């Protein structure tokens, strides 16, 4: 039985840890498919975490926190669009600016409002999202295999976990099966052709960025109002970049990006599990080195040893309308 509970706990942590990555990767797909580089996923996730925690604390309702997080992330996406779509500024510089700005601002405001440690107050159970037990989970537990999968693996997650995996088929459907998605992909591949067809390239990119803002807000809220009960300094810890790497590794496609996110989640779950464990022949690996595994994996995946990734062809280039 210990083996089974090990599998259950590893699977559960993989699903939970992958959740913010999945939201962020889906958000990245929208921005980058429309031709706008988005390294600012990291900053937006952090902003959402901060705003969601503060909003839930003041209004006593995590949904209001989530709503405020969505508003703040969409605003940041619009700022990115204003700089890089409207004013044709450098997209990477704009992202780096947003990331540094948010790292500073969230911690500075948390310290100014809630004391020097830079933590937001711990949320009570009413102020945060709790694990959801699926219906009949207890009753079905005794059924072999199905009961185990349903009650011990599928049941008992935060709402964001379910939403994240639900978002993947939806994003796939929107991007690849609707005319809106076709237009998003077209402005990322060949904006001048889209312009000739009478579609406004700028509006399309702003729309894609707005969806990007909504999706990434969920990732931040998951961190500060579900998994943790407060915001702390730099709590996104590079997840925005990991998600971006997963998206690139997944070739800007929701399904493959999901697999890459799960791979990251699994490695992270495994590294937490390995901390302090004595391994045969190697002995105990120092905890600092184990913690670096997801970052090393990112570099390895980006190195493209499993096939070269091809970005949307107009990515990173501001669209300049001919006169």
């Amino acid at each position, binding site marked *: 039985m210990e083996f089974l509970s090990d599998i259950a706990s590893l699977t559960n942590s993989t699903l939970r840890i992958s959740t913010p990555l999945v939201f962020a990767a889906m958000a990245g797909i929208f921005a980058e498919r429309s031709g706008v580089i988005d390294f600012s996923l990291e900053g937006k996730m952090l902003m959402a975490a901060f705003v969601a925690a503060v909003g839930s604390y003041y209004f006593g309702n995590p949904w209001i926190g989530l709503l405020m997080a969505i508003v703040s992330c969409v605003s940041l996406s619009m700022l990115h669009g204003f700089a890089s779509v409207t004013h044709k500024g450098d997209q990477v510089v704009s992202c780096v600016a947003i990331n540094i700005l*948010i790292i500073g601002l969230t911690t500075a405001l948390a310290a100014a409002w809630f004391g020097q440690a830079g933590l937001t107050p711990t949320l009570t159970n009413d102020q945060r999202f709790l694990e959801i037990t699926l219906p009949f989970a207890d009753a079905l537990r005794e059924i072999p295999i199905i009961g185990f999968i349903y009650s011990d693996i599928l049941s008992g997650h935060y709402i964001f976990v379910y939403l994240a995996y639900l978002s993947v088929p939806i994003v796939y459907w929107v991007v690849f099966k609707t005319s809106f998605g076709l237009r998003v992909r077209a402005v990322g591949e060949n904006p001048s052709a889209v312009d000739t067809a009478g579609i406004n390239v700028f509006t399309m990119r702003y729309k894609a960025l707005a969806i990007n803002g909504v999706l990434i807000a969920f990732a931040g809220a998951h961190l500060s109002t579900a998994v943790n009960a407060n915001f702390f300094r730099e709590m996104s810890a590079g997840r925005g970049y990991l998600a971006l790497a997963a998206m690139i590794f997944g070739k800007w496609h929701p399904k493959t990006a999901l697999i890459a996110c799960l791979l990251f989640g699994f490695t992270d779950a495994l590294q937490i599990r390995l901390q302090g464990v004595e391994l045969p022949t190697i002995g105990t690996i120092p905890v600092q080195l184990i913690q670096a595994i997801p970052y090393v994996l990112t570099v390895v995946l980006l190195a493209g040893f499993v096939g070269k*990734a091809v970005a949307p062809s107009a990515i990173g280039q501001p669209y300049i309308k001919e006169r």
Partner: protein
Amino acid sequence: MSTAVDKSKVPWWVSNLIVPLVNLTLALLVSALFIFIAGENPYQAIKLIIYGSFGYLEGFAYTLYYTTNFIFTGLAFAVAFHCRLFNIGGEGQAYIGGLGVFLVAINVSFLPVPIIWLLSIAGAFIFGAAWAFIPAYLQAKRGSHVVITTIMFNFIASSLMVYLLVDVIRDMKQMGPHTVALPKEMWLPSFKDFAALFGIKIRYSPLNLSFLLAIVASFFVWFLVWKTKWGYEMRAVGHNTQAAIYAGISPYKNIIIAMLISGGLAGLLSINEILGVHHKIVSGFPAGYGFTGIAVALMGRNHPIGIFPAAFLFGILYQGGSEVTFDMPNITRYMFVAVQGVIILFSGALENLFRPQIESFFVNRLNKEVEA
């Protein structure tokens, strides 16, 4: 949309002085708003910043000490940027550079001191460059974006250094994660030592000989980027890779060399921090200077002549900022990280916000003068 102006008619001081100053002013106005939101008076904060950075000799020395760090990291970002590479891994490269300084200095302690310094500088440069090599290689050969790989290398450097400081090179007699101190004769002479030579007694400040090294590095970068064949090739790759390939310039070679020099310059930060100030490796000594380098380089338009005043401005913000954090309980040093972000936004991403208007304003005025 404003009307486009003939770029050749725009005087150099409009595009290189007026526009950056307008952008900086906008950034500082937004920053003042943040200070207001945090519940403090922005006007008082500015007065404290000016006093803290200029008001007394030690304060001014601190300002120049921070300036030294920002010159190194600003130059590091700028060199890579001329090749259109975003090396945001200055933080990790400086951290590993520190390892180079320490290992070299501790192993050649039998040599005369000035030679130890030169070897340590080489150690800092080589270790910093080595840490930039893998991201550089992956960018050149596999197209893996350096922004992500260098950020990942920051995280990896941090883990690696904490591991080394806790388990391998820690001063085993002490509890904290730091190494043993280097022998006193290896320490770079500080500003206080110089003042003592002239019989002037001043209080401690971390300003040291590295400031001169930063000036030398600025000349080095200027010469390398604008006066050598390699600098020309590198800028050609950055400007238009396809055209550079047609001209027979190898983008791979230039990307890798640009990143190595960039990483090496970031590594030099540790000369100031380790040979000049801490005299040992302390956990987390790059303290965000690597990221500030991005703002410094973008504000200084990636030219050493611009980077110097930009680094000085950030020196004022850091030193004056620490004065603010003493006096204003609601302001922490992270407020000044946010200020950096705003400055990058306005002088980098939004640099064209008012440029057309400002340029056409001055061009029209000059035209009128010519007609009159």
